C-alpha cells in the first residue's frame, strides 16, 4: 500500500495578498515553503462565479487515460517559437559511447501537469500538480506531490496572479498576463519552475532531471527565470539534465534530431550544440545533445547544464549509473510524470469540489467539436 504521510496533507489558509514569501528578517522563504503553502491558497481566494460548465471528461473504462493539457496549451507557443534548423549536417558528428560512471550520486526529477477543469461565467478553473521524485544512494526513494492546486482565473485576477509569480516570486519585471485560456499553462510553468528549484535544493552533487529542454527566453520562461534556477542547482554542485520526448530541432533534410542515433544499438550521445543556429544557441542554458541511454531505448533531445568542474558526458554517464530506464527514459522522470498527471476521476473530483465549495450552478459539459462533427472526428 501507498505509504502516505497523512500528517503532511494539510491545507494552509492564506490570502494571496499576504502570501509570505519573505520571512521575518525580510529574506525570501524557500521555494519549497512557497510551493507547499501555495496548495490551497488559490482555493481560498477563489473569485465567486455563478455558473460552471465542467470540462468534458474522456471516457473509456479499462483504457489508460491521462490528462495533461500542457501539450494542448503550449501548442500555440511552440508554433510561435518555431522549428529550428541545424546549421550543418548532423551526420558529420560522431556518437560518443556512454559507459556508466560508477559514482553513486543522488538523482531528483520534476514534472508538472495542468488541466482545465471547466469554465465559469467569469473565467476558467484549472488545476496544476507538481511531482518531485528524489532518490539517494542507499536510501528509500521519496515522492513529493504538491497539489492539485485549484485556481479560478478571471479577467480581474489574472494580472495579479501572473505578476505575483513574475515579480514577487521570480523577481522578474512586471509583465502582461496572457489570455485567460493560457493562464493554466502559465501557472503550471511557474509551479514547475518552483518545483525544479525545490528538486535541486534537496540534493547535492547529484543530477536534477527536467522534463523538456533548457531553452529560455520563450513565451513562458524568461531567460532570468531559468538562469536563476540552473545557477541555484549548480551552487549545490548538481548537474541538470533536461530530457525532451519531442524536439523542434530539425536537420537540413527535415528530419528531427532524434533520428540522429537511428541504427545505433548502444548507449551513446551526440553533442549537437554547435550545430544549432547562433540565435537559438543563446537561448539554451546548457548544451544540446541527442542521447540514447540504453541500447534498446529511444533517443531523446537531452540538454545538459553540468555542475561546475564537470562536463555533459560525465553527467550523462553518471545518470546511467544512478538511474534505471524504461524504454530508454529515466525512471525517476517517468515516476515524476506518473504522479503529476491527472486521471479522469481526479478531474471529476476537482469539478465536484469546485461546484460544492463555491456553490455554482452546473451547466452541462459541452464540446462544440462533438456537437458539430460527431461521430466523424468529434
Amino acid at each position: 500500500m501507498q505509504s502516505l504521510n497523512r500528517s503532511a496533507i494539510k491545507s494552509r489558509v492564506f490570502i494571496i495578498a499576504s502570501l509570505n514569501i519573505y520571512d521575518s528578517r525580510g529574506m525570501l522563504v524557500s521555494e519549497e515553503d512557497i510551493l507547499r503553502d501555495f496548495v490551497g491558497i488559490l482555493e481560498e481566494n477563489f473569485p465567486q462565479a455563478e455558473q460552471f460548465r465542467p470540462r468534458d471528461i474522456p471516457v473509456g473504462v479499462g483504457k489508460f487515460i491521462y490528462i495533461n493539457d500542457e501539450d494542448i496549451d503550449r501548442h500555440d507557443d511552440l508554433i510561435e517559437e518555431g522549428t529550428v534548423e541545424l546549421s550543418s549536417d548532423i551526420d558529420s558528428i560522431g556518437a560518443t559511447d556512454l559507459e556508466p560512471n560508477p559514482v553513486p550520486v543522488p538523482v531528483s526529477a520534476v514534472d508538472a501537469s495542468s488541466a482545465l477543469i471547466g469554465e465559469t461565467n467569469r473565467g476558467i478553473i484549472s488545476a496544476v500538480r507538481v511531482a518531485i521524485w528524489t532518490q539517494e544512494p542507499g536510501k528509500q526513494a521519496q515522492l513529493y506531490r504538491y497539489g492539485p492546486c485549484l485556481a479560478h482565473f478571471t479577467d480581474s485576477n489574472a494580472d495579479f496572479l501572473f505578476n505575483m509569480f513574475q515579480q514577487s516570486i521570480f523577481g522578474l519585471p512586471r509583465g502582461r498576463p496572457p489570455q485567460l485560456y493560457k493562464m493554466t499553462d502559465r501557472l503550471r510553468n511557474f509551479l514547475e519552475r518552483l518545483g525544479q528549484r525545490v528538486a535541486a535544493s534537496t540534493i547535492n552533487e547529484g543530477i536534477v532531471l527536467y522534463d523538456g529542454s533548457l531553452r529560455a527566453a520563450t513565451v513562458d520562461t524568461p531567460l532570468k527565470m531559468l538562469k536563476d534556477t540552473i545557477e541555484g542547482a549548480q551552487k549545490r554542485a548538481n548537474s541538470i539534465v533536461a530530457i525532451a520526448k519531442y524536439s523542434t530541432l530539425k536537420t537540413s533534410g527535415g528530419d528531427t534530431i532524434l533520428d540522429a542515433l537511428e541504427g545505433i544499438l548502444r548507449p551513446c550521445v551526440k553533442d549537437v550544440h554547435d550545430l544549432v543556429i547562433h540565435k537559438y544557441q543563446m537561448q539554451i542554458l546548457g548544451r544540446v545533445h541527442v542521447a540514447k541511454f540504453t541500447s534498446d531505448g529511444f533517443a531523446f533531445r537531452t540538454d545538459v547544464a553540468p555542475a561546475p568542474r564537470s562536463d555533459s558526458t560525465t553527467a550523462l554517464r553518471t545518470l546511467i549509473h544512478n538511474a534505471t530506464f524504461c524504454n530508454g527514459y529515466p525512471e525517476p522522470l517517468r515516476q515524476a510524470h506518473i504522479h503529476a498527471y491527472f486521471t479522469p476521476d481526479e478531474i471529476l473530483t476537482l469539478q465536484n469540489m469546485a461546484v460544492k465549495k463555491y456553490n455554482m450552478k452546473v451547466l452541462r459539459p459541452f464540446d462544440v467539436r462533438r456537437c458539430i462533427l460527431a461521430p466523424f472526428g468529434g
Partner: protein
Amino acid sequence: MQMFRKYGDEVILIYNPRMENVEVGENIKIVDTEVGRGLVVQVIEQSLVDLAGILEDIIRAESIGEINVEEYVSADYEQFHQDVRNMKFARAKIRKELTVHDRKENVADWTGWIPDRGATVTSIDDDWLLRQLGLVAREFKHPVTLGEITYTEIPLTTSAFHLQGISIIVGKKGSGKSHIGKALLLSLIDQKAKGIVFDINDEYPPMRCIEDGSKSPYYNSIVPLDPGTNLRFTLPYVGPDVFIDVLVTTLGMGEPSAYELRNIWAELEELNQLSFSNLYTAVKTHMDGKTRGAVIRRLDLLKQTDLFVDNEDSATTIEAELEKIANGGAITINLKMKNKNTMDLVVQAVLRKLQELLEKGLDPLFIFAEEAHMYLRETNWADAVTRMRHLGTYQIYMTNTPTAIRQLVIRQADNLFLFHLTEPGDLAHITPATRIDPETLDQVARALPPRTCLAVGETTTHYPFVITTKPLPVQTAGETRLYFKEK
C-alpha cells in the same frame, strides 16, 4: 441517488455511499411526480462504479511500493476524491409499477414504462409496501410471521393459508434453514394445525422446553417419537405392502421370496395370528431351504430395528398419536443415526398410513421433511405433489442439497425460502420454484448473511423479500457431537 440506466427489467442507480446506504434486498421507489407514475424496484446487487481513470489511480498508487510519499493537497480534495473513487451503483429489478392519483398511491404489475432520469429516488418504507401488497397481519385470520424484513426490521407476516402447498427451504449448512422450519412449525401449531416432522437431526423435541430447561408452551403440542423406542408397529398395522416393499426395495429381497412371504403373511392373517414372531417362525418352518435363508437374514435385520412388536398395547398408531395433538401440534419422528432400513420402514409406513387416513377423511396436515432425499423414494416424490397434496398433506422440504429435490417438486412449489447459496448448479435447479427472475436468486443468494433468507411465493404475493429469521421462545439448537470442544 439517481437513476442512470435501464436494461430489460433492471435499472442502475448511482449513489454516494458516504451519503446514502443501500443494501441488497432493499426496496426503492422511483417516482416521476410530474406524470404521477413510478416504479418499485428491488436491489439485487451493488458494486463500485468503474470510472475512467480509477485503474490508473490504483496502479499509480500501488506501483510505487513502499516509498515515502509526502503529499500536499487541500483537506477537502481528499474527501471529494474518495467520494468519486467510491461511487457505487445498485442494480435493481423492477418489481411493480406505481401510479399516483390524488396523492393516493397504488402498485400494480409493471407495464414496461420507465421514469426519466430526473425522477425522485427514495428508499421505500416497507410498511407502505406491505400494505400495497396486502400483507398486513391484522387482515389475516391465521397470521404467520415469517421473520423481519432485514433492512427495515419490520415483521413480515403472511397467512397460514398460503403455506397449504409445497414450500422449499434451501441453504447451506448453518445458514438458518432449520430455524425457519421450526418457526413455521410453531406458527402453524399456534394456528391449531397439525404436523409430522421427519426429524433427521432430532432437533425439534428440544422446542418442548425453553432455554432454562423448563417447559415451553409447546411442551404438550410436540410429541416426539423415536423408532424402536416409542414408535413400534404391529405387522397388521404396517400391512404387507409396506413391509414386503421395504424388504424388496431396501433390503434387496428377490421376487420369488417376496411371493412366498406374501403367501405366508396371508395365511397368518387369515388365521388371525399375524405377528412378527409368528411370521419369523412360519418362514423358518414353511419355506424351503434356499428361500428361507434369504428371507430369514432380512427378517433378522428388521428385528434388530426393534420397530416391530407383537403386542398391540406396546405398539404405536399414527391415529393415536394424532389424537394427542388434536388441538394443534406436531409429531416428530427421530431419524437421527437410524440406519437406512429403519428410516425407510418408518417413513414408508407413516406415509402409507397417512394416505389411508386422509382418504378416510383425516384433517389435512403439514409434513416437514428435512433432507428428504435421504429417505424418500422416487414414487414418494411423485405422490407428494399429486395424490398426497390433493388429499391434504402440505409439505415443507428443507435441504442443503437443493439438487436432490426432484424437479417435479420444484416446479410445483408454492413458496421458496432461500438462504445463502453459492453453487450455480444449486441456484439454477431451484429457479423454477419461483416466479421471479434467475438474476435475483443468483445475486441475492450469494449476498445473504446467516439467518437471512429470500422469501418469495404465495406467502409474499410473489414479491421477494429479504428477511431475517426471528428468535424463537424455545430451545432450538441442534446438538452436534464435537471432538474438539474449543477453538
